C-alpha cells in the first residue's frame, strides 16, 4: 500500500488535467449546438403553426421545447463544471491571465442569463401567454445562444491570438484593451465557424432522428416537417461553412504556422508542398503512408502564388515550441476527419437541394434517408475533430507564444481522482440523457402525455394504479392537452 500511495503521489497532474479538460469540453460541446440551434428550429415550427394553423407544427414546437429544456439543463450544469475547471485545473493560467481571458466571459454571462430566463418563460408559458407573445419570448433565446457562444469562442480565439494587453518587466498584465481582447485577430472567423457548426450539428442531429423514424415507416406530415425544418437549415449552412473553414485555415497559415504545419503534415519548410491525405509523421521527420496531392497545400494556402507558396514546416520551430510527433499525427488525422466529413455532408446537402429544386419536395429514397440518419453522428464527429485541431494544434501553448500548458496546470496530484469521477458521472449523465429523451419520444408516440400537477415522484392517481403493465402510464391522449 505504501508504494501505491507513493506512486499516486508521484502522478503527473498535467496529462490528467489535459484529459479532463478535453473530456468535459468534448462532452459539453455536443450539447451546445442543441442549445443554440434547437430554439431556432422550434421557433420555425412555432411560426408555421401560428401562421398556417398547422397542428402538427404546433405539436412539434411543443415537444421540441421540452427536449430543449432537458438538454439545456444538462448543458447548463456541464458548462458550470467548466467554469470550476478553469481554476481547478489551470490555476496558474487563471492567476496570470484571468483579468484578460475573463473579459469575454463577462459578456457570456449576460447572454447565458438571458437565455436561461427566456427559456424558462418560453417552456413554461405555452398555455398562459397569448400565442404570438409566447412566440416572441422565444426570439431572445436564439439571439442569446448565438451571442453567448460567440463570447465563449472569443475567449478561446484569444488563446490562439492573444492581444489587447501589455506585460510589465515582471510579466504581469498591466494594460488591458477590452475591445482588442474580445475582437482579437482570430475571433471573427473562429466564432463564425463555431456558430455555423452549431446550426449544422444541431440540424443534422435533429434531422437524423426524424430520418430514422421515416425509415421505420413513419412518413406522416409530422415527421416530414421535423425533418425538413432541421435539415434545411443545416443544408443551407453547409456550403457557407466550407467557405468560412477555408478562410480560417488561411488565417492559421498566416498566424499560427506551427499549427498549420501540423494540419498539413509538413515536416520541412518549402514550396510546392503536397496536400497529404491520411499518412503519419515519424519521429525522424519523414512522412509515411497517405496520399499526397502534389502542390495542393501550397496552392490552397495562397492561390495567388500557387504552387510557389512557401509553407513553414515543423523544422522552422524549436522542438519545445511545436506539437510533438504524436500531437502532429492527432491534429492531422483530426483535420482529415473534419474536412472529409464536412465534404460528405456538403454532398448530402447538394443532393437534398437538387431534388428540392426539381421536384419541390425532399428526396424520398431510402438511401437518402439512410445517409441523413447517419448525418447527425457524422456532424458531431466532424465538430469534435475540429476542436481537436484547434486545441491540440496549439500545443505546447495554452496562450499562444506566451504561456505553455505545463506552466499553467495545477500541481495538485489528485487531479486523476476528479478525472475518474467526472468520467463516471458524465457517462451516466450522457446515457441517461439519451434514454430520457428517447423515453419522452416513445411515450409521446404511444399517445401518452405526462399528467400535469403530478407530484414529481409521488404515487399515480388512484385510477391508474394497479392497471397491470400499464400502471404508471398516462391514459390521457396528447391531443387533448394541446391548447
Amino acid at each position, binding site marked *: 500500500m505504501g508504494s501505491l500511495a507513493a506512486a499516486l503521489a508521484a502522478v503527473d497532474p498535467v496529462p490528467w488535467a489535459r484529459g479532463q479538460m478535453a473530456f468535459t469540453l468534448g462532452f459539453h460541446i455536443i450539447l451546445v449546438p442543441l442549445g443554440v440551434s434547437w430554439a431556432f428550429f422550434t421557433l420555425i415550427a412555432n411560426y408555421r403553426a401560428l401562421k398556417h394553423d398547422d397542428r402538427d407544427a404546433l405539436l412539434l414546437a411543443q415537444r421540441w421545447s421540452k427536449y430543449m429544456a432537458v438538454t439545456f439543463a444538462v448543458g447548463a450544469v456541464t458548462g458550470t463544471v467548466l467554469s470550476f475547471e478553469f481554476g481547478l485545473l489551470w490555476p496558474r493560467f487563471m492567476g496570470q491571465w484571468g483579468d484578460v481571458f475573463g473579459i469575454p466571459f463577462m459578456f457570456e454571462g449576460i447572454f447565458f*442569463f438571458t437565455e436561461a430566463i427566456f427559456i424558462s418563460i418560453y417552456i413554461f408559458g405555452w398555455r398562459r401567454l397569448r400565442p404570438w407573445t409566447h412566440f416572441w419570448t422565444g426570439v431572445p433565446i436564439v439571439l442569446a445562444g448565438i451571442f453567448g457562444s460567440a463570447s465563449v469562442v472569443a475567449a478561446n480565439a484569444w488563446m490562439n491570438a492573444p492581444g489587447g494587453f501589455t506585460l510589465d518587466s515582471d510579466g504581469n498584465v498591466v494594460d488591458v484593451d477590452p475591445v482588442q481582447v474580445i475582437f482579437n485577430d482570430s475571433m471573427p472567423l473562429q466564432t463564425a465557424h463555431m456558430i455555423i457548426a452549431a446550426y449544422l450539428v444541431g440540424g443534422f442531429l435533429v434531422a437524423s432522428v426524424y430520418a430514422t423514424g421515416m425509415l421505420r415507416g413513419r412518413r406522416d406530415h409530422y415527421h416530414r416537417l421535423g425533418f425538413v425544418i432541421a435539415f434545411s437549415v443545416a443544408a443551407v449552412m453547409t456550403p457557407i461553412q466550407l467557405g468560412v473553414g477555408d478562410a480560417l485555415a488561411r488565417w492559421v497559415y498566416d498566424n499560427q504556422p506551427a499549427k498549420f504545419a501540423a494540419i498539413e503534415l509538413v515536416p520541412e519548410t518549402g514550396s510546392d508542398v503536397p496536400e497529404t491525405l491520411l499518412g503519419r509523421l515519424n519521429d525522424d521527420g519523414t512522412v509515411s503512408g497517405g496520399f499526397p496531392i502534389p502542390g495542393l497545400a501550397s496552392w490552397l494556402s495562397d492561390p495567388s502564388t500557387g504552387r510557389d507558396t512557401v509553407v513553414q514546416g515543423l523544422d522552422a520551430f524549436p522542438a519545445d515550441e511545436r506539437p510533438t510527433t504524436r500531437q502532429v499525427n492527432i491534429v492531422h488525422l483530426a483535420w482529415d476527419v473534419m474536412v472529409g466529413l464536412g465534404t460528405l455532408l456538403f454532398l448530402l446537402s447538394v443532393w437534398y437541394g437538387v431534388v428540392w429544386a426539381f421536384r419541390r419536395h425532399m428526396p424520398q429514397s431510402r438511401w437518402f434517408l439512410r445517409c441523413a440518419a447517419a448525418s447527425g453522428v457524422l456532424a458531431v464527429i466532424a465538430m469534435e475533430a475540429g476542436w481537436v485541431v484547434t486545441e491540440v494544434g496549439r500545443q505546447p501553448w495554452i496562450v499562444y507564444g506566451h504561456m505553455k500548458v505545463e506552466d499553467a496546470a495545477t500541481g495538485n496530484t489528485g487531479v486523476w481522482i476528479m478525472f475518474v469521477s467526472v468520467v463516471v458521472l458524465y457517462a451516466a449523465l450522457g446515457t441517461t440523457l439519451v434514454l430520457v429523451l428517447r423515453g419522452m419520444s416513445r411515450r409521446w408516440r404511444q399517445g401518452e402525455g405526462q399528467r400535469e400537477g403530478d407530484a414529481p415522484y409521488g404515487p399515480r392517481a388512484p385510477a391508474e394504479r394497479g392497471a397491470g403493465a400499464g400502471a404508471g402510464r398516462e391514459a390521457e391522449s396528447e391531443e387533448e392537452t394541446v391548447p
Partner: protein
Amino acid sequence: MSTTVAIVLLAGIIAYAIFAGADFGAGFWDLVAGGPERGARPRAVIEHSVGPVWEANHVWLIFVFVVLWTSFPEAYASVTLTLFVPLAIAALGIVLRGAGFAFRKAVVRLEHRRVFGGAFALSSVLVPFALGAIAGGIASGRVPAGGRAGDPVDSWINPTSILGGVLAVAAVAYLAAAYLVWDARRLGDPEMAAYFRRRAVAAAVAVAVIGIIGLFVLRADAEYVYGELTSRALPVVLVSVAAGVGALVLLVRDAARGGRLLAVGAVASIVAAWGVAQWPYLLPESLKVSAAAAPDATLTTVLVVVGLAVLVVVPGFIVLYVLDQRGLLPEEGS
C-alpha cells in the same frame, strides 16, 4: 474602483445565496419529505416552486466566478489551488443536482423518479455544505495568497468550515421553507402552508442556535473575522438578527408574505456581514482587495458589463418572477 467591484462580487454572492439558496433549501425539504406517499404533497409544492426558476438562479454562481477571476485573478487562483476538494465536490454535486431535477420531470416510472429525485435532493444538501465550507476556509485565513497551495484537507475540514457548511445548509433550508409557505398558500393548499410553516420555524431556531455556537467557534478559530464581526460588521449582524427574529414572529403569526421578505433579509445580511467582516481582505490577512485587483481597464469593463446586465437581465428576471409568482407559468406545455 476595486472596492466597487468587490461590492458587486458580494452582491453576486448574496444574490446566489438567496435565489439559488432557496432552491437548494427546497431540495433539502424534498430530501426529508419522506417516502413517495407521504412526501407527494410537499414535493408537488417544491417542484412547482423550483421548476421555472432554478436555471436562471444558478447563473449567479457563474457570475460570481467570472467576476472573481476577471477582477481578482490571483485570489481565484489561490482559492482553486487550495480548496480543490470542496470545489470539486460542489461541481460534481451541481451536475448531479441539475441533471437529477431535469430528468425527474422527464421520466414516468416511480422508481426512476425516486433515483433522480434522490440525486437532486442529496446534492441539494451536499453543494451548499461544500460552498459554506469553502467560505469558512477563506474566512479563517486558511487560503494563502501568491500561488501557493494551502493544506488540501485542513483548509476545508476545520471548525470554521464545518460551521460554514452547516450554517449554509440550515440557512437555505430556512429560506426555502419561508418561501414554500407562501407558495403553498398561493396554490391554495393551507395544509401544506402549515406544514412548511412549522418547518420554517424549526429551521429559524436551528439557524439561531448554530449562529450562537458559531460566534464561539469563530472566536477560537477565525480571529480576524470574529473581531470585525463584533465591531465594524456589528450593525449588519444586528440587522440580520432583527430580520430573523421579525421573520420568526411573522411566521408564527402566519403572515407568510412578510415572513418571506424578512427571511430573505436575514440570510442576505448574514452573507453581507461576512463580506464586511473580511474587508479590506479578499483572503483574510494575506491578500487585500486592492492588491489583488486587475488592471483598471478590466475593472471598468466588469462594471460596464454589470451595468449592461442590470439593463438587460434584470427586466427579464423580473418578468420571469412576476409570471412565476402570478401563477402564469403553471406547468410545462405538453
